[in-house]
């Protein structure tokens, strides 16, 4: 946007302060931050997408005319949904069920009947719809289950969309071509039709990250930022706007420099995304058809977006203590619940492995200094001595697991089966407290990161549902080398035979007992370790998101039979 700066300062009697504050300074770009709902960069003029204003018809002419108006709106909406459906069948088949659920609602057996009854009793179509939906939405909103609350919000959108169709049967989508659409909220079919009309980005005032609208925007790769409060008041029609769906940023009136920077960002990420999207959907499979699960280690919110981009099959390691470090205090139950739930939902049905806090007494602020913190009060040792911390975390986990069955629990720094059993007892008690007898079992795994755990894998297997080998600590403890010791760096050798004997033993024991076993340390991402891990038959590899694509690439070039033979030759040769 060109800004005319020549007008300021003409009137010489203005005080310098007033001139400096003049809004027409060349740089009045505005940055708004909200929720990143769908990744991508969009740059274009804003089009304000408002529901048509009410017609103000509070009384109806005749019940029959009102009923006809209602049925006309229904067939208009059906037409809109069917054309949206035709678009998504070709471009994003996974979201067809969402459109279908709207069609079902529209054709619902009792909706028509109830509205008809009220209209015939003298209500306008709007009043009748409002009345019917009020009773339905109220109950959903009062539900303790966030999924049902969200459904309530969706029904509310559905109602608004319905009401809009009654007022103005047809909307002009063509004016959104090449534009950033700014709306209070949009319905799923609107997202599809806006995308088809060529809208390049979406900004909404209402939040709700789980809503169908967001899922659709992601599937159609329409960059979107949602929950921008007062978006309609801040962004003028026609103003140039940048939507950064990676970080949840909207830039209004960008300077030439900002605009160019974002254009470069958009063009380079576009290409990268296209390649990634193709590669991300390929399976992690050797040339002879052995499949591996590639998961991600997550420590920060931005890891999640990247995990989606690289096609991770779930979370192999959620570093929950990251939330502690970020907040500078222990997160409360609600904060944990929110975070775990978001992840469970994002990755469903793939597993999300929540590692219990691996906190040391030093981080918890007990003021105690340990001479050897790596071997001190940390992981499961800390948790069992701080039951209040453990139980808060378990409560958050149990509540999420009641809704999302893809949650797993991983216990850090285990050295004996007793520790795992103790955690299981705490978990069981929390489940009884929160849910009662109907609670389903949550898988509990042992982090194998001490030589003791590796050597006692058979005993651990009796009380564990899965193993996850944490190679960073396993190497440090096996070789007795501090991994942060600058002068001993060359002794920190992840390929030391002692380390691999332990890994091999754990995998063997796990497979004898039918337990899945994964690797979640840096070794999983190490280029030279891939063939050995494949040959050992490790079931899952978990890495930081950035390492996942190269890892998949390596696996897809290997032969499982050959890798297996090589591992066997290595072990037999000593």
């Amino acid at each position, binding site marked *: 946007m060109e800004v005319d700066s020549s007008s300021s300062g003409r009137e010489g009697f203005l005080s310098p302060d007033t001139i400096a504050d003049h809004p027409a300074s060349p740089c009045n770009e505005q940055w708004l931050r909200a929720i990143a709902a769908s990744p991508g960069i969009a740059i274009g003029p804003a089009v304000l997408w408002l529901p048509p204003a009410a017609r103000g018809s509070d009384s109806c002419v005749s019940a029959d005319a009102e009923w006809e108006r209602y049925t006309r709106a229904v067939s208009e909406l059906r037409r809109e949904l069917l054309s949206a459906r035709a678009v998504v069948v070709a471009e994003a088949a996974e979201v067809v069920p969402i459109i279908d*659920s709207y069609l*079902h*609602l529209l054709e619902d057996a009792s*909706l028509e009947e109830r509205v008809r009854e009220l209209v015939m009793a003298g209500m306008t179509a709007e009043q009748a719809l409002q009345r019917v939906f009020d009773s*339905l939405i109220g*109950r959903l909103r009062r*539900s303790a289950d966030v*999924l049902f609350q969200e459904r309530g919000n969706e029904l509310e959108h559905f109602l608004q969309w319905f009401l809009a169709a009654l007022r103005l049967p047809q909307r002009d989508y063509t004016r959104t071509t090449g534009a950033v659409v700014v709306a209070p909220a949009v319905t799923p079919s609107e997202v599809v039709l806006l995308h088809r009309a060529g809208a390049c980005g979406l900004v909404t005032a209402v939040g709700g990250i789980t809503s169908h609208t967001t899922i659709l925007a992601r599937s159609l790769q329409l960059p979107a930022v949602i929950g921008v409060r007062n978006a309609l008041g801040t962004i003028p029609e026609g103003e140039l706007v940048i939507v950064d769906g990676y970080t949840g940023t909207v830039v209004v009136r960008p300077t030439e420099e900002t605009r160019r920077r974002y254009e470069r960002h958009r063009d380079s990420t576009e290409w990268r995304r296209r390649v990634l999207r193709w590669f991300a959907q390929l399976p992690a499979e050797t040339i002879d058809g052995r499949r591996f699960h590639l998961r991600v280690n997550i420590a920060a919110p931005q890891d999640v977006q990247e995990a989606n981009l690289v096609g991770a099959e779930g979370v192999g390691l959620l570093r929950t203590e990251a939330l502690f470090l970020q907040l500078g205090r222990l997160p409360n139950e609600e904060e944990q619940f929110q975070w775990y739930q978001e992840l469970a939902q994002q990755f469903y049905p793939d597993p999300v492995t929540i590692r219990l806090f691996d906190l040391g007494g030093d981080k918890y602020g007990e003021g105690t200094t340990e001479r050897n913190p790596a071997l001190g009060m940390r992981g499961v040792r800390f948790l069992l001595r701080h039951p209040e911390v453990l139980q808060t975390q378990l409560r958050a986990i149990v509540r999420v697991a009641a*809704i999302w069955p893809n949650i797993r629990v991983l216990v850090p720094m285990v050295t004996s089966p007793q520790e795992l059993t103790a955690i299981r007892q705490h978990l069981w008690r929390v489940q009884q407290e929160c849910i009662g007898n109907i609670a389903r079992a949550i898988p509990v795994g042992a982090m194998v990161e001490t030589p003791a755990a590796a050597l006692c894998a058979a005993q651990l297997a009796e009380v564990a549902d899965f193993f996850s080998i944490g190679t960073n600590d396993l190497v440090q403890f096996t070789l007795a080398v501090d991994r942060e010791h600058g002068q001993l760096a060359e002794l920190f050798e992840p390929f030391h035979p002692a380390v691999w004997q332990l890994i091999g033993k754990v995998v063997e024991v796990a497979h004898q007992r039918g337990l899945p076993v994964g690797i979640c340390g840096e070794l999983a991402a190490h280029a030279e370790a891939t063939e050995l891990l494949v040959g050992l038959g490790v079931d899952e590899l978990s890495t930081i998101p950035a390492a996942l694509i190269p890892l998949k690439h390596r696996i897809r070039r290997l032969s499982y039979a050959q890798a297996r033979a090589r591992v066997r030759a290595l072990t037999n040769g000593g």
Partner: protein
Amino acid sequence: MVERSVVVRLPLGLHARPAAELAALAARFTATVWLVRDGIAANAKSVLELMSLAVEHGTTVVVQAEGEDAGEAVLRVADFLQRAEEG
């Protein structure tokens, strides 16, 4: 009138997709089928009404049916609600 009380085992409760499946199932019977939760009844052939009952995992509901094939309808609907897996 045939009726039976069941505990809902569907992992996520009766949310959008299972509600649609259940409505389709109920529609196959000539009997009128109701799902009652805390005294509020929903027409089991209506997705909208089913969903807005907000039936969470673990809730107890009563299935009622009236009509020719009411017995079979109650049996099948109850079975559906007690499935531990979606699919």
